[in-house]
């Protein structure tokens, strides 16, 4: 059991159960919280989320989470891992449920896709270290989304091909890590990826 304090941000969007289950499997005891103090004391943050961009940001605002998240991530440089909608709300803007402002952690915007992208898809990796260590191109991860992140290529650590279009599959920028896919739903490959992130947290803090 690791002593590192991993805090899963509770902003009341979607399934937190499986991310807790995965982290427990990997030997961690994550805390789910929306308290400023807990977030400030964390060694690393996980931003999960399923649902719509607009609803997510409304919850972030009503729970007063915006400032503490921005400070912890941009000023204190805490490692953060966003999953699916948790990645999308890191952007400047999102267009799901009307145009709304995101957390603004990344210079990016989230726009609609033509079709629902659901199922296991293979990825092409651009930045191997740290989170894709021991994972090769064409590894499969589970996607389930109908909006995607548009941003500069320098942020992108992997892409996937869907509907004849290259879609941002994951992000890596300084201490910010995020995946459009669900590592907690991607069996061994997903667990390996989470292990890589946790190893990174162990090394830097």
């Amino acid at each position: 059991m690791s002593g590192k304090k991993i805090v899963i941000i509770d902003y009341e969007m979607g399934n937190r159960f499986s991310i807790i289950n995965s982290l427990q499997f990997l030997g961690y005891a994550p805390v789910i919280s929306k308290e400023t103090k807990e977030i400030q004391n964390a060694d690393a943050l996980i931003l999960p989320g399923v649902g719509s961009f607009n609803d997510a940001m409304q919850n972030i605002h009503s729970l007063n989470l915006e400032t503490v998240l921005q400070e912890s991530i941009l000023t204190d440089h805490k490692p953060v891992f966003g999953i699916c909608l948790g990645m999308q709300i890191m952007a400047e803007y999102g267009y799901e449920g009307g145009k709304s402002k995101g957390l603004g952690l990344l210079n990016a915007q989230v726009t609609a896709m033509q079709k629902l992208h659901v199922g296991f898809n293979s990825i092409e990796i651009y930045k191997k270290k740290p989170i894709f260590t021991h994972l090769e191109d064409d590894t499969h991860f589970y996607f389930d989304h109908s909006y995607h992140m548009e941003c500069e290529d320098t942020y992108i650590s992997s892409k996937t091909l869907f509907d004849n279009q290259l879609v941002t599959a994951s992000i890596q920028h300084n201490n910010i890590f995020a995946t459009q896919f669900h590592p907690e739903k991607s069996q061994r490959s997903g667990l390996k990826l989470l292990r890589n992130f946790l190893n990174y947290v162990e090394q830097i803090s």
Partner: protein
Amino acid sequence: MIKKRVIATIIIKDGWAVQSIGFNNYLPVGKAEIAAEFFNEWGVDEIALIDISATRNNTLIQSETVKKVASKIFTPLSVGGGIKTIDDIRLILDHGADKVIINHALKKSDFIQKAIHYFGKQCIIASVDAIQEGKKYYRYDYLTHNFTDDLFQTLQSIQTGEILLNSVNRDGMKNGYDLELYTKALEVTQTPLIAMGGAKNPYNLRELFDKTDLSAAAAANFFHYYEHSISITKALLKSDTNRPIRHDGLLKYNQFEFDEDGRIKKQDEEELQQMLFEHHQREII
């Protein structure tokens, strides 16, 4: 490239996982969470957990069962059984489900609209039972056994993220998927469809993927019949041509041959002897 999905369905009746035959006969399998743990280990793409007694008994699938199953797997979990309110959905999601499957409550269109608004389209799967009578397909109501609504009109009106389309005529009959049904259904709806009903062996999934554009096939009964059923199914789907199937689990079955039921043929004695001395290290993540 996006892969076709092989989905294992676990049917629950009165608290036990069962095999269902013709929507009216049931054989016990055991505990749902044990079946789920094996399916996950064997590399299934998704698991659907459906309590078929819930609506009939006017209850909701036991949230404890959902939690037990969810804690054993690292793969997407869809759950159905008596879900008819927003609170039901929230409870099921809080116990580890990723999506909910709604059959009977589809008729309450304001509830469905709300559910889509709160949880997103991708979270809601419509489950529709199709019955063929003569040349026509109808939507079957498993409570009243009535069928009057035209199936394809029903499919067109559905706004959820996915549709699980069950064939009542094929349920447990082991005569393969109803290819005509799925071909016609694909013509009338853009919503991703999941085929279910009639799969006897991996060849039926192969036929479905080769002859229709369906992206997902679900089966329940036959996956319970033998060890490593999912891994072997995927190996068979990859054996003659490189179909878009995810087959990266630890159990490969790459060099094996298959019999007419899609099971692996016995290896020759020499090879079996050699396998006895192979050392497989346990993978540590």
